[in-house]
């Protein structure tokens, strides 16, 4: 895990995808309803975190596998459009990882990276949910106007989750990892 290559499928990366997908898949069960057929899954925050920790490909696969697992375990049908949406959100959350001077484990980051996490998170939500919306319109044949309502509901809810849950957690980890040096015992 020293070189920051995104296609380097070391065993660690394979396991990170597996465990990340298990986490995202299991936590995907929990959600609040915020609008018509629209849920906020706090689990989305884990895509932000794993993306920042392991990069875009890991984020993408965790989103995809995790989402399909949630659907498979809860029974019923797999919502492929939304599963690819999760994958895209995961992909975008990983882009910040590609900065050479950004490293969660070492706690090295600059202010610009925080904006990047936020902006990529935002774009990820729009692209991911946009894809899911188009999928539902063109593949499933849902009405455009109804999907527009769902689109905005889901985008706003997910952006809120990324901002309120995902980003603070990543920031907290970064701060802690940065602080872990130069500690003094106080009397």
């Amino acid at each position, binding site marked *: 895990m020293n070189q920051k290559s995104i296609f380097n499928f*070391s065993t*660690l990366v394979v396991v990170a995808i*597996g*465990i990340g997908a298990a986490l995202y898949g299991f936590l995907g069960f929990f959600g609040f309803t915020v609008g018509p057929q629209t849920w906020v899954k706090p689990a989305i925050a884990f895509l932000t975190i794993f993306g920042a920790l392991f990069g875009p490909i890991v984020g993408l696969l965790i989103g995809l596998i995790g989402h399909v697992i949630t659907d498979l375990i809860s029974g019923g049908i797999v919502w492929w459009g939304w599963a690819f949406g999760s994958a895209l959100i995961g992909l975008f959350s990983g882009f910040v990882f590609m900065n050479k001077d950004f490293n969660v484990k070492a706690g090295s980051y600059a202010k610009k990276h925080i904006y990047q996490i936020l902006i990529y998170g935002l774009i990820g939500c729009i692209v991911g949910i946009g894809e899911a919306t188009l999928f539902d319109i063109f593949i499933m044949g849902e009405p455009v106007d109804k999907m527009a309502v769902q689109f905005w509901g889901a985008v706003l809810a997910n952006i809120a989750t990324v901002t309120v*849950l995902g980003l603070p957690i990543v920031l907290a*980890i970064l701060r802690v990892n940065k602080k872990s040096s130069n500690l003094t015992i106080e009397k």
Partner: protein
Amino acid sequence: MSKMGTLYAPGNSIFHRMDGSVKMLLFAAWTIATFLFLDLRVFVVMLLVGLGLLLSAKIPFRRIRVIFWVMIVFNVFNTAFILLITPTYGSELTGTSTPVLNIGYNTINLETLFYVLTLTTKYITLLPISLLFIFTTHPSQFASSLNRIGIPYKIAYAVNIAFRYIPDIQSEFRSITNSMQMRGIGFRKGDAPFIQRVKNVTSIAFPMLYSSLQRIEVVSNAMELRGFGKHRRRTWYHMEKYQGIDYLVGTLSILLIAGSIWMKVSVLKGFWYPL
């Protein structure tokens, strides 16, 4: 959910014996075929066939009852939203409008009702094969099957790891939330104001995350020490030789994809509206 982390129900039907990769292919073909159309006739035929197959797998009904209910509730709500938000959407597809019910700001028409019926059937058509796949496929077969249909084995194995550790994560989640509740941290409505509850939910994330990161390290070490990733290919303990039935169903699945594409292109191009 069973201890295995999936809904797998042991049995000895033809679907239980079928190879996982073939079932994946069938599942994919069925899904594609359903996705292509917006035609009630197609869905009714597929639904009947699907239900027949589901019955033959002899999955105990009490295990899938809830899922049917969830599906029905979903469709009721979906229908309600479509009718409320776009009460005349059906006209866009047919070009005609037959008013049925005035809802104040607009009028729901017959075309839309028929459209909603078609859409609901479309969703339900996906259900039998999906259930068949989930309930008759042992999770151990997922990874080898994915690899067999061309997914690189490292990605396929990640799926195996996910299924392996979901139950562990589940029980860990339970003990974490229990211990937090004992410290007065509430998650349910009424335990605390909304903002506080959001904060409380955030605080589950840390222990879950840290223990997962620790687990990633341990599991990755264990796998490395046992030679994972040594070669470009690997064999699978759970990969059986294809039997006659596998070839048959595989061929039928491919025919289903080809057939449905042909039908879509040349016969049933759009929304079917007989009235």
